[in-house]
């Protein structure tokens, strides 16, 4: 598939060599093909607020709340700093695994699951490249101007991890209880759990593909598909006897890979 894709892209690149030649020869048309570029953000700072929802959940789910401050160096290029907080949780699947695994005595040596780190506070600085400017005709008389952009940047994120395998104090093995709940069926009454927890601060890379729809001069709506990427970290060759005794066990995985948090972001932008 890669070879095929490359061939298609190469053919499309070659087609660029005759960009708009016919129309430009006559001089009747301006070089700008979407004339009346109504909104020119160059030189303007902007403030944005966004909410991110998970596109796909596995063992964790994240809900991002970000604030961004950007400066448009050109109409097509801006630098932006984004910071915020992500509310996160284990999914129902993760809870189900944790409860059933407590009673799975046939698995006494195992590895931690991948992609269990959850991000909370985070901040990134990046570049936004918006080479595409266009219009959509919503109805006959309401054109909507938009930009399509790519966003790439990096920064730091505060991460936490709560195991769904290693319970240091099993309360009820058959019922899968590893917390101090007052009744077996009342998970909400627990104030503390005994799953192994870790925290760390790690470099984070973020990349996005988005649309910015202009609303009058100063307002805009942004729709993004954004990926937050950081290096995973987990332990392997864990011994049940050790972790249930509260002792550290196993060793770090050699090639833990990367964790991707793919979000659909909905944002508002105010341009000064």
């Amino acid at each position: 598939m890669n070879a095929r894709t490359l061939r298609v892209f190469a053919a499309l690149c070659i087609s660029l060599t005759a960009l708009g030649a016919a129309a430009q020869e006559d001089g009747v048309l301006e070089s700008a093909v979407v004339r009346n570029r109504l909104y020119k953000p160059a030189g303007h700072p902007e403030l944005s607020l966004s909410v991110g929802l998970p596109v796909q959940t596995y063992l964790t789910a994240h809900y991002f709340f970000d604030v961004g401050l950007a400066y448009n160096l050109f109409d097509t290029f801006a630098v932006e700093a984004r910071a915020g907080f992500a509310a996160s949780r284990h999914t129902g699947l993760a809870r189900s695994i944790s409860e059933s695994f407590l009673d799975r005595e046939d698995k006494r040596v195992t590895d931690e699951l991948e992609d269990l780190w959850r991000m909370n506070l985070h901040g990134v600085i990046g570049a936004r490249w918006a080479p595409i400017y266009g219009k959509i005709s919503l109805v006959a008389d309401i054109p909507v101007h938009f930009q399509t952009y790519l966003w790439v940047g990096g920064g730091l994120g505060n991460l936490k991890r709560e195991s769904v395998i290693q319970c240091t104090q099993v309360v009820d093995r058959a019922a899968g209880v590893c917390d101090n709940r007052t009744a077996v069926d009342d998970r909400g009454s627990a104030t503390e759990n005994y799953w192994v927890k870790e925290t760390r601060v790690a470099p984070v890379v973020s990349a996005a593909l988005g649309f910015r729809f202009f609303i009058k001069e100063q307002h805009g709506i942004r729709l993004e598909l954004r990926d937050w990427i950081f290096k995973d970290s987990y332990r392997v060759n864990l011994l049940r006897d050790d972790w249930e005794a509260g002792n550290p066990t196993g060793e770090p995985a050699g090639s833990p890979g990367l964790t991707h948090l793919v979000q659909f972001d909905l944002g508002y932008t105010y341009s000064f």
Partner: protein
Amino acid sequence: MRPFRSIALLVAAVPALAFAQGAAPAQPPGSPGPETTAPASTSPGEPPERSRTQRDAPAVPQAAPETPAAPPASRSGTASDEDAAASDTTAPAPAPAGPTSGIAPADAPVLESPESGEAPRTTDAQQQRLVNGAPLYNPNVNVHIVQKKRFADEGKHELVLYPGVVQVNGKFTNHVGTALHYVYHLQENFALQLGGQYNWYSDESDFNLELIDKVREQAQAASSLLLQWGAHAGVEVTPLYGKFAFFNNSLAQFSLVLSGGAGVGKTRHLIRPKVANEVDGQTYQVPARFGDTGNKFLGEVGGGFRVQFGESYAIRLEVRDLIYTARVDKVDGCNLGDFEALEAARAANQPFDGLSLSGSCKVAKFDGVDPETKKNYREDIILGRDLVAEPSSDVLNNVSFYAGFSMLF
């Protein structure tokens, strides 16, 4: 790791989207092509409303274009204000009684009532000339025209090939395939479509295998059902169209397409992953084995963009959801009772010939030894039984990203 391929493909498609429209040349002057507007400008001496909306005055060509435009009266029906900024649009200024520079073009509007109207703000006859219904050269006029679509779809046939169809929501399954669609555009914004898709890769996801390996858990059989191929018929609507520029250099016209349909799809389920089989000190690699779980009703909804370049070609970037209900109570036609009987016979090392099985059970698939890998198929009976031991059902959403190109004729 898992969503990486999907987002990478999405991101990679953007330059292609931009590149593709390079094949669409900007509109030649005589055709009803892209928006023909005079550069935004305010009346002389009037300060700009906001610096970001300022535009340069156009350069007047040395020679008038050879093709005269139609009289302005015939174009009035196609001209309309497009942008808010154009609300202060001034009608084309009437031409002066006598040109002050050069000879007035034949299509230059004439001053109908010189004594009643306001004085023309330009006296250059060339600036009065209309191009595609707009006084392009008149710096005093800000006119925006929503022109016709460059390419009409009505009555056309469209053949779409999607070489890459990649599942983007694969929690327990992964699918990669190729699709071919035929679209007949009944009207400009409404079309009928027929489509087929073959997933040349369909397997359980790494995430599911990780759960099996590390915590002895796996998705229910119905939740990890694999779609081998699908065919559907439906409709497609294009409620929106627009255009965009890549670095101000070239124009592309695009449509938002929404589709929906219904059809049928063939499903299967993984019985046994790829394993190594050791016989008489020799190791054989046994490929993964899948069991037929039958044909299922298929629903399809989707949306995306169609970027047209030229009159006959387009690129399509779409996301489609293939929805199918899944209930796994048979594998290769054998139900739980069949598997129980087969397993009992296998344990007793008896032949399967005399067993009372359901008519649909393909018993041959669970009997014998593979001559190449020496794998005894009877060992798979217990795995098949596990799949149907607790009949499961689910409604699956197979959401995929479709990247393809089409030909219109």
